[in-house]
């Protein structure tokens, strides 16, 4: 199977005044297409930086990042935006829905930036609302939804542009265990359908839904469990 993500000695160094903080200190890693990964580690271990670079929200200080054999480590802001739009779907701990938009419009958001026409996007959003079990909530605004429902909308939105990878940053962090489980089941189902998912979590129970677990410490890979 082909590698969808390949990290080659990635470093991310922040200058904090006179001090240098090595958030990532030489990470090399390959992630296969269709796999389900959990990135784990204590806070400050570099998980978030790792996610930002994986998500093309940030560029590494050095090293190379290949996304589907395309070197994205030196792309400019516009090109990175394009990569995020077409390759990556994000799911966040705090859902990050746009409050003034309805469920339907939130799911449609990536399609709007892809330039889809209104009718096509609307049909696609309907389909996804159905998939995440919110077809009867499409006209609601996020404030009218429960946490679990909001995260389902976020999953719908992440899937809208048919991304190559889904990046989930503590997707169950703000949910109770029952709804958290339901979201994990939804993610597992998506993975079964072939979507590559990389998830950050610090809960080993949540991580147990995945096949591969990457433990980080002080900006380095501590160990990798492959399932």
């Amino acid at each position, binding site marked *: 199977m082909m590698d969808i993500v390949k990290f080659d000695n990635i470093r991310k160094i922040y200058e904090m005044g006179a001090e240098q903080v090595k958030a990532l200190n030489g990470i090399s890693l390959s992630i296969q297409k269709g796999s389900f990964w959990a990135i784990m580690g204590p806070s400050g271990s570099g998980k978030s930086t790792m996610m*930002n670079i994986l*998500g093309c*929200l*940030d560029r590494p200080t050095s090293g190379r990042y290949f996304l589907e054999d395309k070197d994205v480590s030196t792309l400019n*802001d*516009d090109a990175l*935006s*394009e*990569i*995020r*739009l*077409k390759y*990556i779907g*994000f799911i*966040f701990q705090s859902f*990050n*829905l*746009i*409050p*003034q938009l309805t469920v339907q419009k939130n799911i449609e*958001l*990536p399609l*709007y*930036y*892809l*330039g889809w*026409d*209104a009718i096509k996007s609307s049909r696609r959003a309907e389909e996804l609302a159905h998939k995440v079990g919110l077809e009867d909530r499409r006209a609601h605004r996020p404030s009218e939804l429960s946490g679990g429902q909001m995260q389902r909308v976020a999953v719908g*939105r992440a899937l809208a*542009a048919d991304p190559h990878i889904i990046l989930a940053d503590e997707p169950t962090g703000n949910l109770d265990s029952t709804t958290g489980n339901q979201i994990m089941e939804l993610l597992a189902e998506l993975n079964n359908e072939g979507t590559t998912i990389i998830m950050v979590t610090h809960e080993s129970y949540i991580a147990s839904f995945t096949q591969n677990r990457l433990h980080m410490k002080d900006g380095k890979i501590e160990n990798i469990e492959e399932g």
Partner: protein
Amino acid sequence: MHQSRFIRNIWLGIENLLLHKLRSFLTMLGVVFGVGSVVAMLAVGEGASKDALRQIQKLGSNNIIVNSVKSVEEESSTTEHSRMSIYGLTYLDYERISESFPNVQQIAPAKLIRKESRLGSNVLELRIVGTTDEWFELVPRQILAGRVFNAEDVRGTSAVAVLTEYGARKLLATKNTIGQTVRIGGDTFEVIGIIKSETGQAGNIQIPDQQIDAYIPLVTVRKYFGDVFSKRTSGGRTRELVELHQIIAQVDKTDNVEATAAGIERMLQNFHKKKDYEVSVPLALLKQAEATKRRFNIVLGSIASISLLVGGIGIMNIMLASVTERTREIGIRRAIGAKRKQIIIQFLIETVVLSTLGGIVGLVMGIVIPTIITYFTKMPTVITLQSILLPLFISVGIGIIFGLYPAINAAKVDPIIALRHE
């Protein structure tokens, strides 16, 4: 596809503005009042200057008007009772002007006397205008009935009079008009025609005709009434000898008006010991009126641009606050894949929608207010296409200028930080 995205952006902008209806409305007010005052002021200004121009054009833009004036010395010396004051334009002046200025095409003299006139029990004090047939060409007015004088009337001493509509109605009432005889002073005159009259003033020049005019051939006036008039004043009787009160000369080309007027002025200076005449040029007034209008527009424009500037700053202020408030939204959009340019466009369109909406509301206000002014004060107001389009362009411009900085600020938002923003 690109166009449809533009329209969706506008809708998105409107939806976002509707989320904060009161805030958007208050923000808009600056532009509403700015644009409203621009349109209203332009309408009032345009109306006033149109009115002035119309008045001036009634005087004839190619005409030169020379009036007799009582000089200051004359005014004071006439306090002695029995003295007779002699001043003003003479028959000779009239002949000299008509003969020595080749540019003067037509020239009409006017001798003005107030006389009581009566028909049966109707009495009206008329202003007798002793003139020639050329008057009616220099001061063209609509002939309502009968005819004006011809060359024959002017040459002879026929006792004919042309009345104005107003005078005719007062004096003749419902009687047969043309051919009727009226008594003016002590003599009988035949009414040969009735014309419309104008009243009013343009700049400092009185319109040559009045409502109570009776036009009688100059030669006739001299024969019946003579050149000397006595007036009863508080100090007793004063006697005046004025040959002509007014000379109106028409110049062939607009370009020659000013030079000819200067020439007439110089000539009169040579023949008159005192300055007992005054040369006025409607064209100069016309130019002056246009210059005044320009100045007026500049002043109004500056005032309006200050209010528009204030309105624009208000919009910018609110948009900057809105960008801060929506940092997280911007972060989400950027994470999903929106380019910086698209964030700029989103916020810019929102600002432009806000300012343009304000512009449209202001435009309506600026059209309604002059209409109300006209209704209550009868002051003319004119709304031109230019005075509608200009403020609209300006309000779009304000949206772009004052929206650009907040929009660029929005695009600078770092998605990583913004997503952590609470």
